[in-house]
């Protein structure tokens, strides 16, 4: 249900873009979903694994093979942490750790077979990620004294390989592009002050659906 709504949103945004006077044949806008890799055991307090993201991206053709790409996505990760020792403070409720992220990326994509429907490609991106960590040990009370918040920035880059499908839909007079991409990223840790550091980096996954103008 959620993905259906998101699809409607994507189409709506893309239709708005179609109406824009700035459109050009090698310009694309996409709705994308991704997974940002993490590293370190301390991510267990946030549920472990990577960070799911959702966002928008765009590309502009530089030549037949090379596209300038940029994107913005948001995501989050969080867990309820239970304390299993009944004799320690807070064992009844534990605490919640929640991380929200916003990622901005920009780079280049090389389309290997630009005239084909199925297009293998490679990409290189620079990335900046803003993380906002929140800790709360009493969710029932809105004015709980232990609502702790810390933000941090991480910068890095990623390399990816993927494949795209491009095809025209005559009824709406548009060409769509669907991509799936995997890769690897390196980035500085999210340095959360006294709380410690969270490692960003590792595997990357990204899928998108967009329209070409």
């Amino acid at each position, binding site marked *: 249900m959620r993905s259906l709504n998101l699809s409607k*949103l994507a189409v*709506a*945004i893309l*239709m*708005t873009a179609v109406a824009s006077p700035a459109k050009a044949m090698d310009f694309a806008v996409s709705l994308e979903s991704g997974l940002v890799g993490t590293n*370190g*055991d*301390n991510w*267990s*307090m*946030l*549920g*472990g694994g990577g960070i799911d993201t959702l966002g928008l991206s765009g590309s502009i053709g530089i030549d037949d093979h090379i596209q300038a790409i940029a994107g913005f996505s*948001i995501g*989050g*990760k*969080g*867990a*309820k*942490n*239970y*304390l*299993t*020792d009944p*004799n*320690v*403070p*807070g*064992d*009844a*409720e*534990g*605490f*919640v750790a*929640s*991380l*929200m*992220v*916003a990622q901005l990326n920009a780079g280049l994509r090389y389309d290997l077979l630009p005239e084909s429907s199925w297009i293998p490609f490679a990409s290189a991106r620079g990335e900046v990620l*803003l993380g*906002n960590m929140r*800790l*709360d*040990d*009493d*969710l029932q009370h*809105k004015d*709980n*004294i*232990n*609502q*702790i918040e810390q*933000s941090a920035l991480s910068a890095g880059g990623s390399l990816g390989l993927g494949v795209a499908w491009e095809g025209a839909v005559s009824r709406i007079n548009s060409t769509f592009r669907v991509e799936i991409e995997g890769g690897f990223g390196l980035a500085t840790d999210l340095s*959360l002050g*006294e*709380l*410690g*550091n*969270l*490692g960003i980096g590792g595997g990357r996954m990204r899928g998108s659906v967009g329209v070409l103008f």
Partner: protein
Amino acid sequence: MTKSILTKIGLVGLGLSTIAGCGGWDNLNVDSYNHIDKGLWDHDVVATSAGIYARLPVAGELVWVTPDGSSKTVDLQGAETNRIVAAPDGETLLVFGSYPTCDTDDSDIKSIDDCLDFDPERLVWESMVYVVRNGELIASSPIAAHYNALAFTSDGSHAVAYLDFSKADDINFDGLLNLTEVVFIDLVSADTTSVPVGFAADRILFSANDEKAVVLSESKVVVVDLTSSSYDVLVQYALSLDVDDEVRPLDAELTPDGQHCILTVDGSSDLYVLDLENESINIVDLDGAPAALGVESVGDKTALVYQNDAQVDLIEHDYFSVESILLDEPSNNIAVGDGFALLYNVSNSNYHDVYRLDTADSNLVEYRMENPVESMQVAPDGTHAVAVTRPEGASSDPLEAYADQRYGIEVLDLVSDRGAHISQVSNSQPVGVAFSKDSVYALVLLDGLDDLLKINLTTGIAESLDLVDTPMGLGAFGEDGFFITHDSALGLVSFFDPATDTFTPVGGFATGGLFDDERMLVQSTEED
């Protein structure tokens, strides 16, 4: 259609503003769960005059929390904190800690994980004792890992580390473990000196001028000179002439003039009186094996009680003659105040009597508690005591049965000779009792109640003060203040000013180092 698109775009904008930190706390992103087997902080905090210290077991850190609302991690040069003890000077904290090293010359191995990947056998934890004041590391020194208890001189200049086997969860040592030594610590330099004192030493007394330490071990008592840099042994007393006889000291105290050490022996009716000046031992024959002793300085006498005998013995300190006084019920514990000894029974029995014995004239005053005593505390000025009583088998009388089944707080008037006391039934188990410095009232915490009870010791009237969260413990802080620890995962302590009845909560201090993943090795053992 256009309106719908704009709404959706607005929703995206809202998401972006949430990312920017403008969102509320109602909808935190929580999509999984995790289990942690340790507390983020240890609520057995230690108070000094300017703040409190708390261990952070998950992060392995030590945190310093002050009433101005600030907290900071104490830099122990990479060591993890195992145990903390406050010195009597009100400023010094002793920290038993350990830091990780890797037994290799490979400079690429920098973290614990590096060392474990290289060879788990090479990872070594070095035990240290750290001296901390006002949140700053002052000095450190190596110490054997098995020491788990400390005794301090009254001026806080020296401490003695020893093994209290009754509190030893796990004894860590490599190779050989020497159980015949204790370690003297100079709290200015943190220099440590091992002194052989006998097997299983677990009781240390200090003379009134803090120039001598009396160390009690199995079948042996050793007097150590604290004024010598090498902690010379001045004299040794053998408690048994036959090495086959193991004499285990049970309780010991010095007389007010510091000349004699009086000690009882486990399971023996012999009372040992060691003359520390003339190096002699006198054995006083008692009617049975004492359960507890207390030395009272105004009357200059020692009181002794027995587990099963309804009797208290009063011993003067000139000739050590014994005066026996019969009681209605046995007492097995003694609290000493100026001019009196308070006798009570905390065994799992049905005894209700508490006695005040005035040591100068042997005047005995009986107090009858509603329920058996669980704990007893005497107010600083000695005019009142507060007893926490526990539930017992219910009486047939409905009202008595109601009280019998519950905990209670009883305030004893120690000035009255009529055994006056005020009994109050408690809604739940009392978890903390403390007195104001002027002894006007007692502060009481009850389990599960988010209030602090302020009980006037003269009238017994209790005032209820709202707390910010469920309390876990209560302790004295600073000149005339208190601290209250709360049942809060991320750390919460309230500082209480009794003059204004105001609380200053300080929270979030248990989050320091929470997300530190890689623990670094300590490459050198240089002292600060």
